[in-house]
């Protein structure tokens, strides 16, 4: 079976090479047959890569430990449902997965694209074949997943225990898929640039494939944050780690693109700019692969590290040179663009949005590469972590949220200043009031949080104002009262899908501000039956159960959570501490049990690894979050207890994000197309 898999990889290599050469020769000799046949070679590449994928899965299921990859990433004890995770848990398998997604998505797009007979397709197919060729080349000669073991073995090493969680079924594959699919809009944009005549043909397909990649990547990151928060017991969800950053940067560039592509679609402007944005996103995605697979930066996500870094660095440099050469070669040929008519216009607001997003992208990039830079120049190692990114990107993110509120108030081309003042009055006053009230309540030292909440409310009020006003107009012109809003958002799915995504971003913003500015935290070690009080919660340690399995030792600690009146516990209050310990059998009169949590601490001797499951009691207002830090020898348990205000909104945003993205992607039926704005 491993021979079949490897042969199919080699076959895919030849087919994708044929895709490149066939297309180029076909374009030069003007031969449609050759072009069609080389486009079909992508379908055949997909088929052969799929067979490779199936053979690797088969090898996992049949426990064929003679194959090194299977041996390294699974064992007899592993539950077979984790084959899917084991498949991409290492370097070779994840590359095979990426290649599969890329070929599969390319085939689907090429098959159903309405551009089939347009001139840009051969060039785009050439670029796609080129990227696919590169990935299969790496798989076949540098990271072969079908390599055999040198010696006979009966059992494998096993899967990394940190990956043994349902979250791992979706987070890594979505991230990798999102990053892989960026190649498709990149290929279409550059294909049309090489062709050089029509720079608008690719806009629809570019927008749809970008939204797809952007949506998958976004959900992938959100799932990762959720997994880190609920499972890993880091106590956080986003730490501006290099690997997180390299996924965020292309996503930000794509975010800029999905806004500015609307300007090209509606107004025929920003043609060159949109191509630059996709080039940036693609190159940043390659940068991500480089960092991920043996780059020079340390990260907590060291699952797929390898020595392949410099091959991907080479590819990164090649794509950089390639896209800029084409760009400068073609730029004289591009006709001058239409000009912006007014600064008070939707397109100008998208310009500022793009500027802010790229600012954040490049500042993040600088933070990621600066340690390398410092190492080389001064020979001093430094670390650039969360505090830096929070300080630099935080204010820019607030400005971005403000733009999110201003955007919906502006018209395309130009807005009437008087009308704008009318529209902006309500959201602006309310949000200024919110800022003032918050400053009164939380004090001036957290003014940033107040400003941030004000910006969020500004953004959300302006969306709802837009919906209410337009729904009223629809009703007054005879639309059904109950469906008017639904009909409104259906009349322009791109715009209103965008608003729904904005609402999800506002929810994330709430969670981020709540957890960053208002979290409370205490570290205490307590005996059985003792309690910890933090704010108005009491956590009582009621039981400990230890359990030994062949692969792990699990300690489960059971806690009861009470909502209390802190003044009843005044005598135990400790100076210089947020939380305090309460001795055995002390209960307040007003204590109300609101739930119980189980904290798990698992030790995997084979990997010398610890996995911690924290306990969370979540409400829309705040999360009580308990991490088991230590199980001390004297019987105490060391707990890190924190209150994370508004944290659950980070996850509530997920369904809104998905719905908004799908809504914006949903094809508009033909009879509606004309009144679509």
């Amino acid at each position, binding site marked *: 079976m491993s021979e079949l898999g490897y042969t199919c990889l080699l076959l895919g290599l030849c087919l994708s090479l044929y895709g490149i050469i066939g297309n180029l020769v076909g374009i030069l000799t003007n031969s449609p047959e050759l072009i069609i046949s080389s486009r079909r070679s992508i379908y055949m590449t997909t088929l052969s890569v799929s067979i490779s994928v199936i053979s690797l899965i088969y090898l996992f299921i049949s426990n064929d430990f003679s194959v090194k990859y299977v041996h390294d990433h699974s064992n007899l004890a592993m539950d077979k449902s984790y084959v899917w995770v084991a498949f991409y848990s290492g370097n070779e398998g994840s590359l095979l997965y990426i290649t599969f997604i890329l070929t599969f998505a390319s085939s689907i797009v090429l098959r159903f694209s309405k551009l089939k007979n347009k001139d840009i397709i051969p060039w785009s197919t050439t670029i796609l074949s080129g990227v696919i060729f590169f990935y299969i080349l790496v798989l076949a000669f540098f990271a072969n997943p079908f390599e055999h073991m040198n010696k006979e073995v009966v059992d494998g090493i096993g899967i990394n225990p940190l990956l043994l969680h349902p979250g791992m079924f979706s987070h890594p594959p979505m991230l990798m898929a999102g990053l892989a699919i960026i190649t498709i809009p990149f290929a279409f944009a550059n294909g049309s640039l090489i062709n050089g005549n029509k720079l608008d043909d690719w806009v629809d397909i570019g927008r749809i494939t970008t939204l797809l990649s952007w949506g998958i990547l976004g959900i992938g990151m959100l799932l990762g944050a959720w997994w880190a928060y609920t499972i890993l017991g880091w*106590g956080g969800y986003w730490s501006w780690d290099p690997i997180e950053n390299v996924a965020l940067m292309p996503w930000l560039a794509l975010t800029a693109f999905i806004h500015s592509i609307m300007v090209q679609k509606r107004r025929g402007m920003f043609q060159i700019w949109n191509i630059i944005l996709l080039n940036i996103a693609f190159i940043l995605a390659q940068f991500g692969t480089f960092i991920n697979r043996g780059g020079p930066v340390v*990260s*907590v996500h060291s699952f797929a590290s390898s020595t392949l870094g410099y091959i991907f660095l080479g590819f990164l440099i090649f794509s950089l040179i390639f896209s800029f050469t084409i760009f400068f070669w073609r730029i004289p040929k591009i006709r001058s663009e239409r*000009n912006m008519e007014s600064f008070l216009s939707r397109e100008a607001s998208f310009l500022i949005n793009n500027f802010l997003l790229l600012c954040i992208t490049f500042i993040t990039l*600088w933070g990621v590469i600066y340690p390398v830079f410092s190492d080389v120049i001064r020979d*001093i*190692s430094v*670390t650039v972590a969360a505090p830096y990114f929070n300080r630099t990107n935080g204010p820019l993110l607030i400005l971005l949220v403000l733009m999110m509120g201003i955007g919906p108030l502006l018209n395309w081309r130009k807005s009437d200043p008087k009308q704008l003042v009318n529209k902006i009055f309500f959201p602006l006053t309310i949000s200024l009031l919110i800022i003032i009230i918050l400053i009164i309540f939380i004090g001036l030292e957290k003014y940033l949080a107040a400003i941030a909440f004000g910006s969020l409310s500004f953004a959300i009020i302006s969306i709802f104002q837009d919906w209410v006003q337009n729904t009223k107009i629809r009703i007054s012109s005879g639309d059904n009262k109950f469906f008017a809003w639904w009909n409104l958002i259906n009349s322009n799915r791109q715009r209103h899908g965008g608003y729904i995504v904005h609402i999800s971003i506002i929810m994330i913003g709430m969670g981020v501000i709540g957890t960053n500015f208002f979290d409370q935290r205490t570290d205490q070690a307590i005996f059985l039956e003792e309690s910890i009080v933090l704010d108005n919660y009491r956590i009582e340690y009621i039981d400990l159960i230890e359990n030994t399995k062949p692969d792990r030792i699990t300690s489960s600690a059971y806690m009861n959570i009470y909502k209390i009146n802190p003044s009843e516990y005044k005598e135990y209050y400790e100076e210089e*501490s947020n939380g305090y310990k309460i001795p055995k059998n002390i209960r307040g009169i007003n204590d109300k049990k609101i739930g119980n949590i189980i904290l798990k601490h698992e030790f995997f001797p084979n990997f010398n690894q610890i996995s911690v499951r924290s306990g969370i009691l979540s409400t829309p207002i705040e999360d009580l979050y308990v991490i088991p830090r230590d199980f001390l020898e004297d019987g105490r348990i060391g707990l890190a207890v924190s209150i994370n205000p508004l944290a659950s909104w980070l996850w509530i945003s997920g369904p809104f994000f998905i719905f908004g993205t799908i809504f914006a992607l949903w094809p508009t039926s033909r009879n509606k197309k004309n009144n679509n704005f």
Partner: protein
Amino acid sequence: MLHQKKVLIFLSLFFILFFGCINENDLTLEQRSYQLSKQIMCPICDAQTLDQSQSQLAKDMKITILNQLSEGKTNEQIRDFFVNRYGEEVLAYPPQKGLNIFLWIIPTTIFVTGVLIILNTYKNIKKRK
């Protein structure tokens, strides 16, 4: 031109306001130690702060922080203590001196350049009118 300068002055004030330093007073020792544990990296882990790390060294370092805080040391002194021991790498962001200034100059340059480009677009629109 005058107009442009005014905008720049406004923006730089805005930035100074936003990048203002963290206020270390008025906090309990525990809050300060929590703050510090987010600013200091665990030297033996990959890219984890003391706050995130489960390692024994990180636990010991957190105890050191608490002890030094109760001795009355400032956050700055405690950071310096760890820098002397483990090198600059131990800080979650490098001290703002020497080459490290670039860590802050480059973002400001990126931002200002962008603002200038946008102002330029604005001027062009005005001119055409």
